[in-house]
């Protein structure tokens, strides 16, 4: 079971935090800070596993990957395979890459809901559901199409507001 997915940048600012068991926001932030403290102390070119028992309680493991300015972090328990989780991070990042055409940190900052949509297609309630990025893309595009279709009706206030901020 996957317990949490986090994305944060190398300064420790969270970009995505998804916990599959309810935790109050303060606790979430605290966990993110502690994870960052561990990750930032690790040099490059070392293994991607961190013993996370002290942060997330017994029977918890953490794998992370470092891409450019971002850390992608998965926290899970003994019913998942560590290497498979690394692959899953890869799948997640690949999907985002397809979604945004060369994903960068800014994309993730501004597409808060879309990231969640992608993640929800891959992991459902802590269980891995889809591991092919093309399948995920299919679903995500379908959802985007649906959103657009119904947005077309209520487009007026949005366009005014975006004009206003310009």
């Amino acid at each position: 079971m996957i317990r949490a997915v986090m994305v944060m940048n190398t300064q420790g600012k969270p970009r995505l935090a998804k916990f599959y068991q309810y935790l109050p926001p303060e606790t979430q932030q605290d966990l993110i800070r502690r994870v960052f403290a561990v990750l930032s102390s690790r040099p490059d070119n070392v293994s991607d596993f961190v013993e996370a028992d002290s942060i997330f309680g017994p029977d918890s493991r953490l794998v992370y990957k470092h891409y450019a300015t971002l850390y992608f972090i998965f926290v899970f328990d003994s019913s998942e395979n560590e290497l498979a989780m690394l692959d899953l991070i890869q799948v997640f990042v690949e999907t985002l890459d397809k979604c945004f055409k060369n994903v960068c940190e800014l994309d993730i900052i501004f597409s808060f809901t879309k990231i969640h949509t992608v993640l929800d297609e891959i992991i459902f309630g802590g269980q891995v559901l889809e591991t092919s990025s093309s399948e995920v893309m299919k679903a995500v595009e379908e959802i985007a199409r649906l959103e657009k279709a119904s947005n077309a009706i209520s487009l007026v206030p949005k366009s005014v507001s975006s004009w206003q901020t310009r």
Partner: protein
Amino acid sequence: MAAQSIMDSLFQHTLSDMIKSLRHHPIGESKLISKSLDEIRREIKSTDPSTKSTALEKLTYLSSIHAASDMSFASFPIVELLSSPKFPLKKTAYLAASHSFHSSTDVLLLITNQLRKDLASANEHEVCLALNLLSVIGTPDLLRDLTPDLVSLLSTNKLLVRKKAIALTFRVFENCPDSVRLLFRRLVENLESSDQGVVSATVGVFAELVGRDARSYLALAPEFYRVLVDCKNNWVLIKVLKIFAKLAPLEARLGRRIVEPICEHMRRSGAKSVVFECVRTVVSCLSDYESAVRLAVDKIREFMGESDPNLKYLGLQALSVLAGKHLWAVGENKEAVIKALSDADPNIKREALRLVMMMVSESNVADICRILVNYALKSDPDFCNGILRAILVTCCRNDYEVVEDFDWYVSLLGEMSRNPQCREGEEIERQLVDISLRVKEARPELVRVARELLIDPALLGNPFVHRILSAVAWVSGEYVEFSRNPIEIIEALLQPRANLLPPLIRAVYIQSAFKVLVFCVHSFFFPRETVRSFSLDNLASRVSGLLSEKEDPESLNLAIRDTSTDFEMDKDFDLRFHSRTAEEIAMENVGDDAYADGQSSSSVVLQNPLFTHDCVLNLLNLVKVALGPLSGSDEVEVQERAQNVLGLVGLIQQEISEISLVEMEGTVREKKSKASTIIQIMQDVFSEELVPVAMTVQERVLAPEGLVLSENLAELDAICGDIIPPESSSFYLGGNLFGDKNSVSTSNQRNEEESEEPSSESTSLLAQHRKQHGLYYLPSEKVDAGSSDYPPANDPQSTDNLIDGAQDLMMLTEQSLVTKKKPNHSKPRPVVVKLNEVGEMPVLPVKPMQELKDNSLSGAIRDVLLGNDTKPSSSQRKSSEKSSRRRMVTDLPLDSVGPSKSIENVAIASLDPASSSSRRSKHRSHGKGGHRSPEKNVGSEKEDGKKEKKKSHRHGRSKTRHRAETTLNVPAESPVIPDFLL
């Protein structure tokens, strides 16, 4: 209000507007956030749904990324938006709900109907949203109400929906076991789906379920086996392997069956993750299968040879799992393990260290520890302490099982204390005191090591060493009779830098100084006995060969008893003193010394001037000067102890200074002075030997008659309510005697190789420091000289040490693996006093609350697997089958899992290629069979008596019965699955 609302919807900031402005004003972020929150609070009340939705989106963002706000005020707007017909609004609401709702959110009651509506929606993405929310916030109530709606989703054609519905069943089962009856069969059917995604989701659910309670799913093993053999999808394989890792320990024949396919995957698979999972399965639960283990070890070696640190790490981990049963596997890979000790990755180093410690045995512990301690000096603080901790833990395991030579170990502890990065003070403290109490023979060495640490003023500045210093101070005080130069000890204990210590440890210092002082003055008054016991002890420890084995412990005991009982025997001694002339005594002294310390000339020099009149007077003055200021200390412990010592000094100083030199030399000693009596009493008190005591001893002390323990002491409270009782100072006895077993301590033959220590060294240094800086100067060069056996931290040669060390380690571990039996030691190991654990009852494991729920779940699952639910379709059933099944059930010796047999048998049949088509019908029929069994039991009750009765109870499925059974922890049941898979 209306105008406000329009303005809001017209000029509302969108989420990206907000993010932009947050990014542009990184300084005033918190101000900006609270401004945005104010806006959101206003906007969320808007009547326009899209305004509301945008506000909600922003709020979710702030709450999730900035933890800015509690979202509870938005609960109701979320519920409103959930019912929006527009997909984007609905989606926003669902995201917000899954982020902020939890089991105690009160509006949950309101969303049941909305969820039901969405679950039935034609738009599959809407269904997915609802499922997704349920997977996060599904409470028992909610899930129970919605279970009927889930049933059809488990077999829907929309694969996306079906997968999510399957994944959701895990949460449903967890939260409301009753739903199993409705969902389980459909869930199992999905195992046979042609779609890999569906199978993957189903297997994933089972992997989680099996993790909670494996036994209930044993019956499904054939299905899983088929997946294991046929499946090509790596994700599914990994999950199936996880399942088998849990099932195999429960059923021996299962292991035999799966070991071959697993090896096949291990050989064939190109995916490292699958290979590793196979390896893990083999090392953790199939370690009895030689060939599989062989293959796994080969794979592990491959992993450790890879450049990828991840694989290296996992390889080491797998190896440490295997080490328990197959130590040879570690031996084969020890080059890689030892190389990993100097890896850049702290994880890898830690695993390697753990493996190295596993290879430790009596024969190589000294050498391995020596190398590791040197290695620790060069490591970063974290790993350095990891090494020290590993050594400490390994060596003290099972009452110092691996330690043969305590003198070595004690000096190793001393060396570890000197490591500038050492943070393990507490554990070293514990072990020092523990060894001093338990291992009589180690005491002289312990006192020597303690002295070295005590007289080093540099150590006082390091707060991590303070605990160790407290231990060595105590040891020096308690066993001062082994000390070569008590005056030096007392000077060290009273040195001005001791002010750096925390008060409690300071108190220990003062108390120890007290003991040493009493010892010194006592030996001034009664030199004969002291010297005798002194030299005898020395003798015992030094030249054991000269005394016969039997005599030795006796004389040792005698010496100790001497000091403790000689108060009563005073007269006796007096008489003896009478008959001796001073000359005689002096002669004997010299003789003793020469005898005992033939090799160390220093002792003679030290012992003679030790207790002269001047010396004692100086000592008393020193104590007075050093402790005088402390009598006004704020710290209760320090002040009280200082007062005690000063009180004693006050009592005896006058009298001692009155004794003239002539008197002292002569026969006056037998004249009983007040001072000598006091000292005698004090010495008696202190020479009482402390022994380890079991934790439970207190309980065995009977309460004296007439003592009412439950008497109300409220009045006492009222009287001294405002007085805070001082903290107990005797933390040594309490804190350090962890409950162990106490057996009779027969003191064994003591042997110790002559420590080459410091005869000349200590004298010359002593002279030097006196000469140079008076009483308080303590030479620090001594430190280096003392530990000259080991290269210091920044020794230039230590760089190549690493490689040497690695080679040494390799050689040593080789030793431990090759010669597993104890080498014939020339000297026996000293006895470690243990405590008898009498009357210690094994504590029954406390049953977690979770269990209850699990039980009801597993109960429900067994129900379903056994077909206890009444299904109309399962009503017909062949009579031949009936009879055979009945026979089977009654014949089987096992009652507790009796019911599951029938199904398994049938399931096995279904594994047969020929009968695979008929599996469905068999499923049904065996379900019926299980259902029937209670009656059957009633029928056969007469023959089988109680056993059968038990079974029927079980079928009655009383929950309490269920629980009781698991609590008793029924011993491993013998074969559950008759002829399973065979």
